[in-house]
């Protein structure tokens, strides 16, 4: 046990003191994400300010009385440039000379149409000087005002018709006679909440879990590959293998050291990413006051335990796999390139399952994904989150079986001279293929 502790402490010191790892894995996420978040926040805030202070221009060709009340409404609380021109073409030229981003064109006949009960047409021109988001979104602000005015105008007219006909009805019900509301059923419980709101609530977990798993795996693979390759590059492996300590203890030390440093890296990333999300989207209003616990989707202690076990086993398998691959390289760079191929079976299921349910995919795709062990890591976390413990245990059993196989291979490599003599080369691969 003392030897294992020494090996783990040595691994951590070697990895953490390596500037590439300290900077790339631990410090960069803590610095980069907050900087990105602040930059995004500044940009969003300036956009919000620009949109709030957006001004309009109005070119009115209608001379009726009805348009006056509409224009008075538009002029209230907004900066409006009135364009005086003899034609629309001239108005457009003059509009471009102002700092207004949208021109509201009131066609002749507006008042007459509104009075007669015929659709009155307005047209919006957006002046896209720099093609910024503020410019492209600017017509939305005045559209919102127009829609609101249009709604109350229609309600007022319907009220007038009802009064004229002597009937009894709600003007809003006549305007929109059918109304639908949605509810969601979760684990047999009916919740008076729209499914889209539930999705918004669980989206955080359904994206965070695969992303967290993916991040930890990527860091762990890098750590393990670096750890073995450093031993080879610095010529320390031979000495290590002749020490009076079991080869399995050496393997255990490598796994434990890499896991601890990769967890540190993942925590730094999550911390930095959390700060990024908070600062980048600080302007967004809270969409719902619901909690996952409130809708019965919170993780129970057993679920938390399953997620923990799942992530741990997944980590061990990825590390053991990275160690198996990295023994074929003599340098850190070579080992990292070689273990880079492991990112494919990790990224593909994570990205697909982030936005889709496995059952929605074509059958062949389902089987391909299910054959990849790391699909089960994500499925297990999702199942635990939904309280489907038997499915989670099944997924964990699959990844455990895979881990046992990989650990066995890693142990075989560590207990033989292959750890010192194995080399990956294109020539070797070619010879192997020729022999086959």
């Amino acid at each position: 046990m003392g030897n294992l502790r020494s090996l783990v402490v040595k691994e951590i010191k070697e990895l953490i003191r390596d500037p590439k790892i300290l900077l790339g894995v631990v410090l960069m996420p803590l610095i980069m994400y907050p900087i990105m978040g602040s930059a995004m926040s500044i940009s969003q805030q300036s956009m919000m300010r620009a949109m709030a202070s957006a001004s309009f221009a109005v070119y009115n060709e209608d001379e009726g009385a009805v348009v006056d009340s509409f224009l008075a409404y538009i002029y209230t609380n907004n900066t409006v440039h009135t364009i005086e021109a003899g034609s629309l073409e001239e108005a457009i030229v003059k509009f471009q000379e102002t700092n207004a981003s949208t021109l509201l064109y009131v066609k002749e006949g507006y008042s007459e149409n509104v009075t007669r009960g015929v659709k009155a047409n307005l047209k919006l021109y957006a002046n896209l000087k720099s093609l910024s988001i503020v410019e492209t979104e600017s017509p939305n602000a005045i559209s919102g005002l127009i829609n609101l005015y249009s709604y109350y105008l229609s309600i007022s007219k319907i009220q007038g018709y009802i009064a004229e006909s002597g009937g009894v009805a709600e003007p809003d019900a006549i305007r929109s006679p059918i109304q639908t509301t949605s509810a969601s059923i979760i684990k047999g419980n009916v919740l008076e909440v729209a499914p889209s709101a539930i999705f918004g609530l669980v989206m955080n977990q359904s994206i965070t879990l695969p992303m967290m798993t993916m991040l930890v795996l990527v860091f762990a693979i890098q750590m393990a590959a670096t750890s073995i390759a450093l031993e080879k590059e610095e010529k320390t492996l031979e000495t290590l293998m002749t020490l009076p300590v079991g080869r399995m203890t050496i393997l255990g030390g490598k796994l434990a050291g890499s896991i601890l440093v990769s967890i540190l890296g993942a925590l730094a990333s999550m911390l930095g990413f959390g700060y990024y999300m908070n600062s980048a989207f600080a302007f967004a209003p809270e969409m719902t006051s619901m909690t996952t616990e409130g809708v019965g989707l919170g993780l129970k202690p057993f679920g938390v335990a399953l997620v923990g076990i799942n992530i741990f086993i997944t980590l061990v398998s990825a590390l053991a796999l990275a160690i198996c691959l990295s023994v074929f390289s003599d340098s850190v760079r070579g080992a990292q390139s070689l273990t880079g191929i492991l990112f494919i079976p990790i990224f593909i299921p994570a990205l697909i399952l982030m936005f889709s349910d496995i059952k929605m995919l074509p059958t062949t795709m389902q089987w391909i994904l299910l054959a990849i062990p790391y699909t089960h890591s994500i499925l297990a976390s999702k199942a635990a989150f939904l309280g489907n413990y038997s499915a989670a245990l099944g997924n964990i059993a699959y990844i455990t079986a895979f881990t046992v196989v990989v650990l066995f291979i890693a142990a075989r490599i560590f207990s033989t001279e292959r750890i010192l003599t194995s080399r990956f080369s294109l020539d070797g691969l070619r010879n192997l293929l020729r022999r086959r």
Partner: protein
Amino acid sequence: MVDAIQVEALVKNFGNVEALRGASFSVKDREVFGLIGPNGAGKTTTLRILSTLISPTSGYAKVFGVDVVDEPEKAREMISYLPEEAGAYQNLSGLEYLEFMADFYDNGSRSIADMLEEGKQISGLEERLKDRVKGYSKGMKRRLLLARALMMKPRLAILDEPTSGLDVLHAVHVRQTIRDYVNKQGVTTLISSHNMLEVEYLCHRVALIDEGVIIAEGTPSELRDKFGAQNLEEAFMEATRLG
């Protein structure tokens, strides 16, 4: 009394390359034994088999009667191996490196503090031991590694080209340390080298190895006499000529 090393008909093939072709020799307890030969003669392969790093294709190698293939962990408890191109952990200090290594030999017979004290003296690096290894010169690294290999007083020290690539000052320090320490402490030592004068200076007995087989064995004076040579270098040349 059982021999410290017993190597019999050792063969090692790497694919189509025959690194050892039936090498046999033995080393007595407390003896300093030199294995000398040119590059590619099979010296390092022999040492790596004795250190349990690789297995022979056929034949056997025993350390104090323990077969290195059948009981590698038991063999590793008795040996200390210094590879030719060994390195130390760059991000540890020299002292941390020695502490890390001493921990594996803390079996009650000697305390870690005793081993560290011994290591400090053998290395002679004094205050520089507090610095990270990445700042060491090649000679300093070799002195640290030699201290690591000897500080726990192993029953068998296996030193592969201990002065290879060192400047004169460091090479002399390493040679003197080996001679003084192993003779004083009675540590059986197997040294490989292609520097025959160095082996003559350090070893009680030597074996000449060429193309994977032992071509002559004896004390330096016996070999000189046998081949009518002034030194081991000439003896080796004569032995390979007669081959």
